[in-house]
């Protein structure tokens, strides 16, 4: 094989790899990107039942109920709209009423069924998505971080 051909072989392999990777990335983006919604967004926009999304806001005071079968019911609020959430499993250590929370799951006939609940590992910290959701609903009271 001539030098030029060899170089071409490697360029072809590299292009093939990049092409494959690009195709994989695009296909994965199509199916696996999870959009973030605040409770108000969820009420205003049409979100198809069964599409995987993230919901963020504050855990409404007095809304957390632990029911049987390891299921926890609570409501997430941006102080304008609230959404009922049901979650089966262990809540993260920093999950608390009045604190920011991000839940991932699917909307099911008006109830958000979460299979993952994230609370930051820092109780003074507000997830940025939640802070933004509160700002949008005009209910932001905290200070911006220095």
């Amino acid at each position, binding site marked *: *094989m001539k*030098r030029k051909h*060899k170089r071409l*072989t*490697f360029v072809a*392999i*590299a292009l093939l*790899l*990049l092409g*494959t*990777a690009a195709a*994989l*990335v695009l*296909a*994965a*983006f199509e*199916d*696996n*990107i*999870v*959009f*973030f919604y605040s409770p108000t967004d969820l009420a205003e926009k049409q979100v198809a039942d069964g599409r995987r999304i*993230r919901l963020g806001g504050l855990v409404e005071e007095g809304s957390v109920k*632990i*029911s*049987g*079968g*390891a299921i926890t019911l609570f409501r997430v609020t941006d102080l304008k709209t609230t959404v009922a959430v049901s979650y*089966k*499993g*262990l*809540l993260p*250590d*920093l999950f608390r009423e009045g604190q920011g929370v991000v839940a*991932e799951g699917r909307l099911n006939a008006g109830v958000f069924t979460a299979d993952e609940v*994230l609370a*930051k*590992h*820092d*109780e003074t*910290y507000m*997830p*940025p*998505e939640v802070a*933004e959701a509160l700002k949008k609903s005009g209910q932001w009271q905290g200070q911006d*971080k*220095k």
Partner: protein
Amino acid sequence: MTAEIGHFALILALLIATMQATLPLIGAHKGYGSWMATARPAAVTQFGLVAISFGCLTQLYLTSDFSVLNVVQNSHTAKPLIYKIAGVWANHEGSLLLWVLILSLFGSAVAVFGSNLPPRLRARVLSVQAMIAVGFYLFMLLTSNPFERVFPAPINGQDLNPLLQDPGLAIHPPMLYLGYVGFSMAFSFAIAALIEGRVDAAWARWVRPWTLAAWCFLTGGITLGSWWAYYELGWGGWWFWDPVENASFMPWLAGTALLHSSTVVEKRDTLKGWTILLAIITFSLSLLGTFLVRSGVLTSVHAFATDPARGVFILAFLIIVIGGSLALFAWRAPQLVSTGVFQPISREGALLLNNLIMATAAAAVLLGTLYPLLLDAIGGGKISVGPPFFNAVFIPLMVPMIAAMAVGPMLSWKRADLKPALTRLWTAALAAGAIMLAAWALFADGPVMGVLGIGLAGWLFIGTLVELGGRLQLFKVPLSDSFSRLRRTPRAAWGMTLAHLGLAITIAGMVGAGAWRTESIQAMKPGDTVTVAGYEFTFDGAKDGKGPNYSITEGTFRVFKGGKAVVTLNPEKRIYMVSKRQTTEAAIHTTFFGDLYAVVGDQDPSGAYVTRLYFNPLVAWMWGGVVIMVCAGCLSLTDRRHRIGAPAKSRAQGRVTAQTAGA
């Protein structure tokens, strides 16, 4: 007073580094020997000053000096001693100080043990090292001074985040940083070589051990982090494709590629430009990793230190380092002449394929990690890119690479024939088939990917053994001859074989834990029994207790299999007294075939506890495989050619730990 000494030492270190960054570089250009000679004492002095500064901060933590802001925010008098020490680097400012400490340690190692380096190259390497250091000193002194005082001093501190009060995580950052900063050596050598316009085998011999050592530390560091997530977060998983994890994984991918391509430069005098580029990319990703985690740009489940105000400095620094080095590369790389030629089917070709796949994988991970940030920055909405994305992209890229990994080492340098190599691998193919059948029989209802994955691991494992057998001429010559061949095999070759075997074991563990995990979440009352993967977990209730700086709720599970008692598991929930924060301590029982994993949660009104029980197959294989890989790397470091070819260099490696202890 201690704080002021530390602060002052840091300022002096900045001044020395500035001098070290300029004088030797000009000296090397103009040929002024005395200017070049300033590099070595400067590097050693710089290390001394940073060590003083680090010592001061440690002292402040040990004495719980709450007039210093950093100590107030991250320590408490009731904290155990080891976490007072670990607290030094468990925060943004302190971790940067650790970073420059390691950087200056490596710089002084080159200065002290680099007598056999050409003086020009040495001067330039040290100068580039100092440039990186200047950036870090400025960043610390201007935006993140660990010695800032607070007035009035509070009575006690705010304590370290309890999740970080853990032995695994106490040594995780230093390991990770030894890895990140280790790649700065490859970077400095690459930049120096670009300035010089010359790359040869001697250069590669210097770069390789540094890269190897950095790789070992990074591998260990990542694994420690993953292990910590596994037992401390209580989610039963060990890798979440979290941005913070990706931040350390990208340099690992690029660094692994660099490790392989530097072999080609050393042995075959080719792929020079590519190797230089990889060195630049690897260190750039290390910098990006450090800053992504520390700047607060990432929303992550475990980003512990966050302050967006530092973002501008970081961005500017990254642009200067990455942009500058890539510009230099574009300008100078065409001058690097490679003499070695090779056919696509050859050892070089296989290593290049490895490199291309690793680089593509790193790029895909980078895209997935940064895309949400970019989209948010241009106002495209908030999204998250999670494990499904990374699994869908990363795994298909790795499959051909692992398949080729068994073949690559059998190919000869320069020109090889694929057919005999594949013929020799029939045993591996047979073994892989048998393993897949067995896995299919055991886990018929599990995912097909699991069966394929375990077969791939078997293929790599047996294929690597076949290659070793071929090298020893096993069963072709008398056993005693094979044995003497075994003894003559260089340690670097052993390193390769062992590392590949280790990876095969790790892959098997990942596949097992990923594909065949059994999970069960439920509310349990005392006396309840739940069966998970054939193990009966009987819940005996929970009781309250007390630890040194926390209170605990401890659950008790008795586990039986077929009526026989296996183990008693005691998962805990801890509440730390100072911060009122909770942590979950999973109870894990490790066996050869899998881990029994139990977590206890809150009590519901009926008196039942929420519990999470897992059977995670083959997890121990994953950790064991990594331990083999790291040991293989260390073994390769002790190879004869590192000692004979360049005597001072391997000593430099060996002393690294000794010097830290002595500092």
